[in-house]
């Protein structure tokens, strides 16, 4: 299991290389990338802010829970911070396991949890020079979650 929150560009092959095992029949690599538009508005670049130490804690907790659910510890998640241009990778998730169903389910679940509770914020910068923090999710303390 590997997690990171980093201002350095994400190299997909490196995240991918964190997973895989002779017992695994399925490997999945997901990349979230910066789109050139959002809600019909042209986007110039994104800026990600993070509470890094807490984000690492939350990522570790998410990956540990995904590992229990999916029955595999071959999981890697990296979130980028700082300023990203169009096409750059903001999030990379790699999972490998014996069968494809659990690999897909784990990767999807991880992505939803990252969006739901990892303390990261996204500011969109538009081609007209303006920018704004995007609306997000309101996490609850662990003891109040389902």
């Amino acid at each position, binding site marked *: 299991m590997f997690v990171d929150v980093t201002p350095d560009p994400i190299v997909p092959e490196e995240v991918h290389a964190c997973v895989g095992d002779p017992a695994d029949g399925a490997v999945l690599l997901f990349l979230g990338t910066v789109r050139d538009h959002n809600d019909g508005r042209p986007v110039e670049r994104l800026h990600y802010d993070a*509470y890094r130490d*807490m*984000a690492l804690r939350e990522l570790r907790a998410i990956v540990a829970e995904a590992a229990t659910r999916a029955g595999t510890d071959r999981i890697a998640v990296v979130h980028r911070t700082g300023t990203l241009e169009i096409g750059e990778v903001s999030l990379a998730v790699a999972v490998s396991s014996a069968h494809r169903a659990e690999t897909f389910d784990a990767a999807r679940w991880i992505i939803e949890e990252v969006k739901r*509770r990892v*303390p990261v914020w996204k500011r969109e910068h538009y081609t007209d020079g303006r920018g704004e923090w995007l609306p997000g999710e309101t996490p609850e303390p662990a003891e109040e979650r389902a």
Partner: protein
Amino acid sequence: MQVRFLLFASYRDLTGVEDGGLELPPGATAGTAVAALRARGAPWSALPDRPVVAVNEEYARLDRPLADGDEIALLPPVAGG
């Protein structure tokens, strides 16, 4: 007691402040810390009165008691991915 506060994203933009120290009375909770920050007047008073908070890097309720040396973060709605 003395705690440390952290602000992120839009809250940081609002106040122009990333972090700082805060002197609180004994028995203070996370909510006490938020109220103390909002009592600093504009622009601090524009912080929400019930924001999401984390104490020592874990999401916490506003009635969470604080201890000397704790780190309390005020977190705008998160938007990672």
